[in-house]
């Protein structure tokens, strides 16, 4: 598997957001500044979340995995954000339900063939509740970046 980057400057710690929309807006504003996404990315991801939300109930510390079509992105990488307090997110399993989300793992890709690689890596993290709990409460971007690298080496 090729290396799927998680740059430390795209790891957001303790974002204060009242909603999933606000959380995505905060993160996307920085990514747009960095030139990693195109104008319109935020609108595209909000529209996709409204129809096909990505909150995952992990029966503990919950995670959301927002993503949208590759055409809106200029690069392929992960972006991680943790929240100061859990953010209400609609559930992927049932959009009428909500889950309280403590961490967001977003994937950007500029080529559709990279999508499965991104998801495989994300799944390796979300299926390990001990790791999710540690990362969601982490105060170190290095620790979070390292965890994703190690996940790949296993």
């Amino acid at each position, binding site marked *: 598997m090729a290396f799927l980057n998680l740059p430390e400057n795209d790891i957001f710690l303790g974002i204060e957001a009242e909603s999933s929309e606000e959380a995505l807006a905060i993160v996307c504003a920085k990514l747009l500044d960095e030139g990693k996404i195109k104008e319109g990315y935020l609108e595209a991801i909000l529209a996709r979340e409204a129809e*096909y939300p990505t909150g995952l109930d992990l029966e503990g510390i919950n995670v959301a995995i927002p*993503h949208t079509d590759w055409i809106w992105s200029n690069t392929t990488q992960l972006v991680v954000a943790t929240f100061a307090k859990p953010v209400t997110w609609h559930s992927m*399993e049932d959009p009428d339900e909500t889950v309280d989300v403590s961490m967001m793992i977003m994937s950007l890709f500029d080529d559709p063939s990279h999508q*499965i690689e991104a*998801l*495989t890596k994300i799944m390796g993290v979300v*299926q390990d509740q001990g790791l999710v709990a540690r990362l969601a409460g982490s105060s170190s971007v290095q620790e979070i970046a390292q965890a994703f690298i190690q996940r790949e080496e296993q």
Partner: protein
Amino acid sequence: MEKKTIIVCCGSSMITSTVAVAKVKEVAASIGAPEPRIIQCKFAEVLANLSTHDVDFIVPTGKLKVDVGGVPVIKGTAFVTGIGEDKVKAEIAEALKA
């Protein structure tokens, strides 16, 4: 066991359904069933595929909001979260044997 036709579907980017396709094939192999014919599509394309194919069951990775006319649905969200994955695999195994 007969070869089954299965729709595996997800929201729009074909990410989670790709994972579910691999898992369904894995289940089929583990019980010695013939590899099923899998139609991978977006939720929005499910009805069109149902009208043109004889489908045995559907594995969506989220909630299907359309009326699938009684075709059995086995939710595959567990393939993403890992929560309850064994139960879903058992349900798929049963459906493949049916």
